[in-house]
Every structure is written in structure tokens, then in C-alpha cells.
């Protein structure tokens, strides 16, 4: 793999940019591998990369029914933060923030991580109690998270309106300075390029239709290009986790629901941080100037990647109430991702009851930020067969043990 650099840029400029090498190969599917990762999104590709980099494993397949990063990796609102409630989540995402800061250098690919901080606007006493509790827990974990007055928040977000009529008053705000955003495609491409360079086969446009079992263990995967014999199958497929797991007779505590997002027409720089009003609306401004806007997940389970209009309407009315200055801004695009929402809105990074079947699913509305830390922890699990301390709490068996990990800090959590 030739490194991207200013010298490579100059060299290729001289030849009219016609001789850039391909970023990754397009290998044919082989009949057997040591490990098959289903899903070439951020999580699947990061898992492959860390399996190769940290564990020296090479005979690995990453297979996807579509293209690299074409699922939820390309459909989210790229918010990266660690201000969760539960200790295992905080630890994982704090480690994730560290990895995001180093990612571009490690992968030799600019992920465009931008640490710009996040303001949360608090409009109910219940949410204020929740964030005060989270502040204490986050401080114990060394994650910066402070409570501000509305006026202090306005210093970070000058377009915030505090004077006009509001359905609910803004009581307080929180400031999480280490939050950031990144370029979603670049993350998938960076991990794909680095994994490919380490010898991992990435096969696109090949759908896995079933996991084949032999007794209590995995024998391989059925795909649209034939059967692949493989003793370890790692699922990183978000929306379709339940469908695939059930082909191996594993039932998951997951529902698939749409989470929608939309972008405005490009505007001059007006928003330097991420703003989230829990349960109402969240937004940030992309480098192109578009406001990237989202709200809560849709109320009805569905695999349709569209999102219902009532949710869009509610999110936009919340947006305009808080930021009347945006009332005449046009929206350019709207879409939804189908998210794998776990019963307790915490992820499942775990072995399954079937030997050789590993799960990295249930990330719901929070999967993007967890790409590096989740992928690395999942790679450790698949390679060693033993969950590290970082992910013990995310075991599928937590539901049998009566230890679900209820979260309050996700976009799909309702007050």
C-alpha cells in the first residue's frame, strides 16, 4: 500500500491524477476462510482491521450484500461522544474518543475527525436530574461534561433563541467538549484500505442468506455466490441482525426501526459545535455548510429506510422553535437508516449460544461513534474467544441474568 502524502499528491498531479492505485482489491470469493465477517460497514471493516493488526490473523473474509459503508455507516449524523450513563458504555466510548483522535494517522487516511464539543439543551426537570447524575458518573470516569446556564450555552451557540416563546423553557445546558464529528465514508474507506493492505478479502455485492449450523456450531455461510466453509462467523449487520441470527436459530432482543436524518441547503459557518436537545432535535454543521439534522427514532418498527413524515414534521418544528433564524432554510435531502434497537438500548458484543457465531449488533442509534472501540473489542472477542473486561457487560446473556443495561443517552431514548 503506497501511503497518501503531499509527495504522492504532487507526483500524481504531474500525471493528471490518472495513475492513483486502487484503494483496495476486488477479490473473488473463496470456498473457505478462518473467519467471515458479515457486513462491510464501519464495524465489520474495523473488526477485520484489528483482527489483522492486533492478532496477526489474515485469512479473513468481509462480505456485504451492498457496497462498503453503504448501510448505516453512510446514513448516520456522525456524532461522536462519550456522555453516556452506564459505566461500561462510558469506558468504551471514552476509549473510542481516544482512538478517533489517532485514527487518521494510524490508517493513513483522513477521517476528518473534528473535536468540536457538544451542547445539550435541557428542557425538563427529569432530564436535568438525569444529566446531573450523568455528570457525576462521567466525572468519576474522567470524561469532561459540565452543566451550563442557558446564557453560557448561547455563548457556544449564538443562533440559539432564548427570548421567544417556547413550549418548554430551556432550564440548563450541558457541555461535552471532547465530542466531535467525522467524515462517515472516510472511516469505512480508511479501515477498508488498511484491512485490504493486510491481506483481508473484502467481497461486495454478495449477500449472506443464511448461517449454516452443524449441531451446536457454525459450519459456514450460504451466500448468493455459493457456500463458504468457515468456523467463525462474526455478525456486524445492524438492521438485519435478527434475520441472519435466526437462520442459526438464535433469537435476539432487537427490533428494527427507522432513524431518520436530513440536511439543509449549505449555509455560511454558523454553528461551531454539535447541539442536541434530547428527544426533540439535534444538529451540527458539515464542512460543506449543510446543517445535518436528526431527531428520535420512528415509533413503528420497519426495515424501510425512509422514515415517516410525522417525525420529520415534529423534529423540524422543534428545530424552528429553538432556532427561529432557520425558519426559512430549505431542506435538501431526507433519508432513514434501519437501526437495530436493542431492548435496553445498549449494544450486544458477545458470543452467541451457537459456537463460532459472534454478535456485534444492537448498536441502535449509536453505532457510528463506536466503530473503532467496538470493532477493536469485537476483534479481541473473535480472536481469543473470551470477552475482554470492556465488553463483558454487553453480553447477550445479560438478559437471562436479569442484568440489562438500560441507557438514557441515545437518540432513540424517550423521556
Amino acid at each position, binding site marked *: 500500500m503506497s501511503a497518501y502524502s503531499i509527495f504522492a499528491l504532487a507526483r500524481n498531479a504531474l500525471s493528471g491524477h490518472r495513475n492513483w492505485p486502487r484503494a483496495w482489491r476486488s477479490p473473488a470469493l473463496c470456498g473457505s476462510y478462518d473467519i467471515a465477517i458479515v457486513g462491510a460497514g464501519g464495524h465489520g471493516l474495523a473488526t477485520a482491521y484489528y483482527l489483522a493488526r492486533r492478532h496477526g490473523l489474515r485469512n479473513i473474509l468481509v462480505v456485504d450484500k451492498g457496497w462498503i459503508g453503504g448501510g448505516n455507516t453512510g446514513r448516520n449524523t456522525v456524532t461522536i461522544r462519550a456522555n453516556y450513563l452506564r459505566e461500561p458504555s462510558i469506558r468504551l466510548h471514552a476509549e473510542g474518543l481516544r482512538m478517533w483522535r489517532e485514527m487518521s494517522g494510524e490508517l493513513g487516511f483522513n477521517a476528518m475527525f473534528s473535536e468540536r464539543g457538544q451542547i445539550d439543551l435541557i428542557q425538563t426537570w427529569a432530564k436535568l436530574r438525569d444529566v446531573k447524575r450523568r455528570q457525576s458518573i462521567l466525572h468519576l470516569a474522567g470524561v469532561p461534561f459540565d452543566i451550563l446556564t442557558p446564557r453560557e450555552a448561547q455563548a457556544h451557540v449564538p443562533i440559539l433563541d432564548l427570548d421567544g416563546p417556547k413550549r418548554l423553557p430551556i432550564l440548563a445546558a450541558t457541555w461535552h467538549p471532547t465530542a466531535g464529528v467525522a467524515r462517515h465514508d472516510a472511516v469505512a474507506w480508511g479501515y477498508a484500505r488498511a484491512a485490504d493492505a493486510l491481506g483481508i478479502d473484502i467481497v461486495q455485492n454478495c449477500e449472506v442468506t443464511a448461517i449454516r449450523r452443524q449441531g451446536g456450531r457454525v459450519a459456514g455461510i450460504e451466500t448468493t455466490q455459493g457456500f463458504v466453509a468457515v468456523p467463525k462467523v462474526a455478525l456486524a449487520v445492524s438492521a438485519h441482525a435478527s434475520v441472519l441470527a*435466526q437462520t442459526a436459530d438464535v433469537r435476539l432482543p*432487537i*427490533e428494527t426501526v427507522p432513524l431518520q436524518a436530513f440536511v439543509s441547503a449549505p449555509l455560511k459557518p454558523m454553528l461551531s459545535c454539535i447541539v442536541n436537545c434530547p428527544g426533540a432535535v439535534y444538529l451540527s454543521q458539515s464542512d460543506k455548510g449543510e446543517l445535518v439534522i436528526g431527531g428520535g427514532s420512528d415509533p413503528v418498527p420497519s426495515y424501510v429506510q425512509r422514515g415517516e413524515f410525522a417525525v420529520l414534521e415534529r423534529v423540524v418544528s422543534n428545530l424552528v422553535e429553538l432556532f427561529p433564524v432557520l425558519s426559512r432554510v430549505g431542506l435538501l435531502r431526507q433519508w432513514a437508516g434501519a437501526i437495530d434497537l436493542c431492548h435496553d438500548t445498549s449494544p450486544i458484543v458477545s458470543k452467541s449460544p451457537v459456537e463460532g457465531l459472534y454478535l456485534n449488533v444492537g448498536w441502535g442509534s449509536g453505532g457510528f461513534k463506536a466503530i473503532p472501540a467496538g470493532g477493536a473489542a469485537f476483534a479481541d472477542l473473535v480472536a481469543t474467544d473470551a470477552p475482554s473486561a470492556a465488553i463483558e457487560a454487553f453480553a447477550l446473556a445479560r438478559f*437471562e441474568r436479569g442484568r440489562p443495561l438500560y441507557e438514557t443517552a441515545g437518540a432513540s431514548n424517550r423521556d
Partner: protein
Amino acid sequence: MQLVPCPHCGPREQGEFVCLGEAPAHPVSHESLARHLYGRVNAKGVSVELWWHRHGCRQWLRLPRDSATNRFAP
């Protein structure tokens, strides 16, 4: 006042306990209870859902709907 034979603490005074009434036969294993409480088929396709007509007749309905198309089945 009775002494309750706790298998963990030995015989203890009744006031430390709450009586929850007649015990049902232990219904299921933890595994099948978890499957019953949390497990979802989450079908991509038609499944029967419960809908509550909250702002209408207030009836509970069992309606088949296709989650891949968002159409209610006839």
C-alpha cells in the same frame, strides 16, 4: 410472629420478610423466560402486531403488517 427458615441467613424473624403469597410452580428456565420477555422475531416481512387505537375506539387490534414495505396485509 414466626421464624422463617432462610436458606442463606438461617432462621430469621418474620418482620425481615415480605410474604408474596402462594408460589406458582417454577414456570420456566431463565433462558426461556428471557426469550419470552425480550426475544423478538423482528421479521423482515409480514408479522402480526398489536396496535392500540388510542385516539379512536380505544380497542386493541391484532393486525398483520409487512415491515419490508410498511403495508398492512389484507
